[in-house]
């Protein structure tokens, strides 16, 4: 049980890193950035290149991946979302889906569809002391990922709550027009938010690759969707909500993985298939029962 909990927390950390980008972008732009999972994927591949081609140390590779992902986020925002800012939301949504598919398929075109091995950049052997005394297997890898994630989250909340640009981000997400009238350069704030969210997802991509040992062009799809569900579950637009949602999603997923559900003699759902379906089921339930999410503010529809 405690073993499952530890695995769930490691997975939840990666989900949280992706979910934060969704929630931040939604906060300032009211747009679900469908391409976010692909930013995560590109981050993983930039990190892979840094580790295997340039033989950089792990910490530097993470930073390089963050920079690469941030650049991609900036390009996406500038090229596709900014021209559509005054267009109906539907246009931006369809474009977001289009970009997501474009990146996936360009990835397959350039890199091939086969998964690539990710080097075990951090020692993956269990920490003996914990195994002996607590009976749980915790690898050094998991510890490093958790600590790095915690550091990124603390850094992010410091940026959002203590810096000038963080204040501007909060103002824009509160009321974009009013923020503009107060002299805030909204374009710059949105671009910054995009690159910040993308950078965090890029770091998540490297952690994910190291944790599971592979990377492929479609790797962003399911983690992207699950992180999105996590963001909605926690209340989209809320940073602590995204972290809570990510942890809950990971717990549900880890719990479901070991379950085999026999609905009828001919319909048996194994954990691995159930895992993906359950994310959507959680999403639909939460949207129907509490669309604002757990920590979100219930928004009134403005007329």
């Amino acid at each position: 049980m405690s073993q499952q909990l530890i695995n769930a927390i490691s997975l939840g950390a990666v989900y949280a890193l992706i979910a934060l980008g969704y929630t931040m972008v939604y906060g300032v732009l009211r747009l679900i950035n469908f391409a976010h999972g692909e930013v995560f994927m590109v981050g993983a591949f930039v990190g892979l290149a840094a580790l295997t081609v340039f033989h950089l140390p792990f910490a530097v590779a993470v930073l390089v991946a963050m920079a690469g992902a941030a650049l991609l986020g900036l390009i996406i925002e500038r090229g596709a979302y900014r021209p559509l800012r005054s267009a109906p939301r539907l246009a931006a949504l369809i474009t977001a889906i289009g970009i997501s598919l474009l990146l996936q398929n360009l990835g397959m075109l350039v890199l091939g569809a086969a998964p690539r091995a990710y080097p075990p950049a951090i020692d993956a052997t269990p920490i003996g002391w914990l195994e002996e005394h607590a009976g749980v297997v915790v690898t050094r890898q998991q510890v490093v990922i958790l600590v790095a994630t915690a550091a990124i989250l603390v850094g992010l909340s410091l940026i959002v709550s203590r810096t000038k640009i963080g204040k501007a981000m909060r103002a824009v997400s509160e009321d974009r027009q009013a923020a503009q009238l107060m002299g805030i350069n909204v374009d710059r704030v949105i671009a910054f938010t995009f690159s910040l969210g993308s950078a965090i997802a890029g770091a998540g991509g490297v952690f994910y690759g190291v944790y599971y040992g592979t990377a492929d062009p479609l790797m962003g799809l399911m983690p992207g969707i699950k992180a999105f569900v996590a963001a909605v579950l926690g209340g989209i637009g809320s940073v602590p909500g995204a972290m809570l949602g990510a942890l809950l999603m990971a717990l549900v997923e880890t719990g479901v993985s070991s379950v085999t559900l026999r609905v009828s003699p001919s319909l048996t759902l194994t954990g691995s298939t159930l895992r993906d379906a359950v994310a959507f089921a959680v999403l639909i339930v939460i949207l129907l029962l509490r669309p604002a999410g757990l920590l979100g503010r219930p928004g009134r529809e403005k007329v």
Partner: protein
Amino acid sequence: MSAPSPWHHYLPRLGLYLGIGALLLAVSVGLPHVLNAYLIQILVLAACNIVLAVGLNLINGVAGQFSIGHAGFMALGAYVTAWLSVTYGKRWLGAFDGQAVEPVLVAAYLVVLMPIGGLTAALGGLLVGLPSLRLRGDYLAIATLGFGEIIRVLLLNLEAVGGATGLRGIPQCSSLFLVLGAAVVAVAVMRNLGGSVHGRSLLAIREDETAAEALGIDCAHAKTSAFVIGAFFAGVAGCLYAHYTQFIHPRSFDFMKSIELVLIVVLGGGSLRNVVLAAIAITLLPEGLRLVKDMAHLSFDPRMVIYSALLIAVMLIRRERVLQAVAPRRKGGESAA
């Protein structure tokens, strides 16, 4: 003498229907002599896509509800009817094997089967339509995506319909006549619906739901019925598709199929005629690409790259006029949902 009988009113229309039917019959009997089997197959797939696309157009284009799980409805219709055919229909039809009445019976069988597939999918449409009462825009899109994926995962695990190996041995009951007929009926229904009170209510909801509600339109009912009708046609198309290709797999109804349909509707820009043209064009596109691929010896299917690039390009070019919707100008501008 007696009052003019209602027949005077209906006769010209009946004549029109019979004329269209006769034309279709002539075309479907004549074409196989002119075109080879490959071209006929493309024609059948195009007609299926037309049925699917006009249904999705009602949901996405007319009512302005954004659904990206339309392939899920198609899967429902395809799997239920295919399962019926494999377990019961095939044996029943086999009894008439080789007899003179067989072609007529096969056609009649499919005509009965089509509404069954349609109604199954419509039930799914009702299930998805209900959340649309609470969800808007992006959230509704995600919910429909989730619905499509859940259907696919369930089918992948349902051994009774083949699971991950797919369902084979479906009798080939679809004929060019029936498929073209279904496409004509679907377009005609949508055309008439568009001008009706119901169609105009949906348009009003697309433009401004609050105003529509204030005008006395029952938005809940209208939105749900758009989903139900759109899903019905998807189910019919699924039935036709399954009984033409004789093999279905959950993969045939994945997210990519839904996106293909969204692309058709987006390219059609809300007009029924353009949606039909876009459906034909998008059916032809992969075939054309296949030629290019063979010539250039590409090992990769470039279809999705082109689909996604097309989607982005259309959006960036049309901007304000997606699906011909007038961008709603509201107080507070962008904060409005």
